[in-house]
């Protein structure tokens, strides 16, 4: 049965259900146990399973390193990094340990960890608490990056991520935690490595994920009023990249805009653009456009923060430029 719950609550529910299902699942991180997480996402778990919810010291390296070691022994750690920005401190553990363990053991060991981390700007917390970090990790074979955009996806993708045998960086968006949507009560999986067409259309494809998916959908709505039929694709798994869905869509529309919140240079959008150009150049009716943050740290004051972030208006404008090319 479905109810309307928030994205944050959907994640919390996924955690509860997976804790219930598999006693190898445990959570760890700063303030995730007794307090239930800085954003409240792990609430109630410690109360039910005090030995399977661990408050750690401020030690991001230890959080990820411990998770890897525990995973080798068959546990299913779900670690929280309080703000995605702080994964910078455990970057080595992600890149040289988690990402490569399966490879280093020639397939005889796997590293089924989930590292949950809220990312993104919008909460007026400046450059150390607002970054989108997927680009740091998308040249690191072995890692999987998942970024849900809706409550429904958040629950299903987290359940799949916990059950998956790869090390997964699960990027939640702080500005989506309170967003509401329909979510089934029962447990369900959403396949990883599979993009989702969130809106069908025929004139232009917009690829967007996480918070930007909603900007894309709103832009699509506005464009529809002007007679432009937009297809919106949500990759959901950012890395490694399932190309087919995007290529099929652009193959049909011939036009592509990609939206990301991270700074423009070397973002997810760059990679998608390169893939599409490489693989279906002949189908392109217009240049591919990227909509992204400006190449600057995220400043604090609302007027400054808003200035660097992409807007719905930017998406509409880019799409029109592509349409009018």
């Amino acid at each position, binding site marked *: 049965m479905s109810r309307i719950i928030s994205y944050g609550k959907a994640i919390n529910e996924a955690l509860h259900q997976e804790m219930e299902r598999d006693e190898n699942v445990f959570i760890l991180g700063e303030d995730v146990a007794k307090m239930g997480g800085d954003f409240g996402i792990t609430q109630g778990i410690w109360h039910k399973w005090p030995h399977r919810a661990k408050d750690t010291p401020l030690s*991001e390296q*230890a959080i990820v390193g411990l998770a890897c070691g525990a995973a080798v022994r068959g546990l299913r750690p779900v670690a929280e990094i309080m703000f995605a920005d702080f994964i910078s401190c455990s970057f080595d553990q992600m890149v040289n340990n988690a990402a490569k363990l399966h490879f280093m053991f020639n397939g005889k060991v796997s590293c089924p960890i989930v590292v949950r981390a809220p990312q993104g700007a919008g909460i007026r*917390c400046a450059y150390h608490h607002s970054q989108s970090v997927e680009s740091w990790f998308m040249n690191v074979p072995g890692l999987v990056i998942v970024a849900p955009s809706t409550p429904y996806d958040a629950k299903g993708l987290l359940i799949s991520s916990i059950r998956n045998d790869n090390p997964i960086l699960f990027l939640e968006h702080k500005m989506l935690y309170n967003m509401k949507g329909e979510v089934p009560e029962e447990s369900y999986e959403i396949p990883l490595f599979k993009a989702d067409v969130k809106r069908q259309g025929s004139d232009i494809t917009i690829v967007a994920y996480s918070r930007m998916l909603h900007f894309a959908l709103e832009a699509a709505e506005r464009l529809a009023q002007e007679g432009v039929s937009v297809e919106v694709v949500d990759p959901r798994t950012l890395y490694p990249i399932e190309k087919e869905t995007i290529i099929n869509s652009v193959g049909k529309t011939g036009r592509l805009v990609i939206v990301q919140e991270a700074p423009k240079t070397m973002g997810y959008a760059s990679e998608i653009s390169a893939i599409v150009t490489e693989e279906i150049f002949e189908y392109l009716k217009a240049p591919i456009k990227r909509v992204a943050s400006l190449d600057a740290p995220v*400043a604090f*004051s609302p007027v*400054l923060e808003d200035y*660097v972030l992409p807007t719905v208006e930017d998406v509409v404008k880019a799409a029109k430029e592509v349409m009018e090319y």
Partner: protein
Amino acid sequence: MSISNEQLLEMYYSMLLIRKFEDAIDLYAKKGIIPGFVHLSTGQEACHVGVVKALRPTDFKYPDHRGHGAILMCGTDKKRVMAEIFGKATGINGGRGGSMHVNDIEFGNMGFNGIQGSITLTALGTAFASQYKGTDEVSVVFMGDGTLGEGACHESINLAATWKLPVIYALINNQYAISTHYTEAHPQKQLATWADGYGVPNEVVDGNDVEAVYEATTRAVQRARKGEGPTLLEFMTYRWQGHFAGDPAAYRPEEEVQAWKEKCPIKRLKEKLLAKGESEEALKVIEDKANKEIEEMLEYSLNSPEPDPEEAVKHVYVGWEVESKK
């Protein structure tokens, strides 16, 4: 070492100012006028005042995320500190930093920290520069009990001790890192003993006694200026508020909070001053002065303009402009 009455009165004023500053920030944060979140140093005023007063303007001071108090002591124009927290164009960093990032190189105020532990490393560099240039500025890093969990702290103290760098670790043990009691995050009963493992001199100091804080810091500073290397000072105190303004802090017992409020560092200094013969009236005058200054800062901050949006992409590089929205 003896602290004059005059100095004590100045400290009293400073502590009151910080207390009232934090109260004002709390109010405007809860009103939603200050954007983002703020970490208040209420209850820890003696640490901030005692440490910074023992330093020179040319020393390097690294306030941490709960750093308003220390920042106010550095010499930076106080109304521009507040304006920064309000995100205004007149803020000391033009509103780009906010509460956690209020810095001012002119006064050695290195408040730019949002990543816990990171400044213990930057401090190595400003301290190294003193050694390299043969000057005697010290570098003082504020850090919390929780922050000690970060690997950065080890790399910092190990190097500072080996190279005898003039670094002082001002570890404010306010008992909690967000919801986690320090005894749940560390094996030591007193965190100061951590420094023993590196042969680094350390002291446990009553962090609610501004004189004790000042004196311990002065001793550490003297050692550092003489080239005798780092010191770690553990200041025992308490965070009156939740982790951030608005955090109900349900994770800690109310009696504990009350017991610590009894030990209020400001009340304590006031009693000392009265015992030393200062009059209630004289202290009231000081309090009024602090109130007035806060009023002025608020007026300044509230009436200051928003930053020019284009500022958001300035100073990313030296000599290279990033694309703006035109």
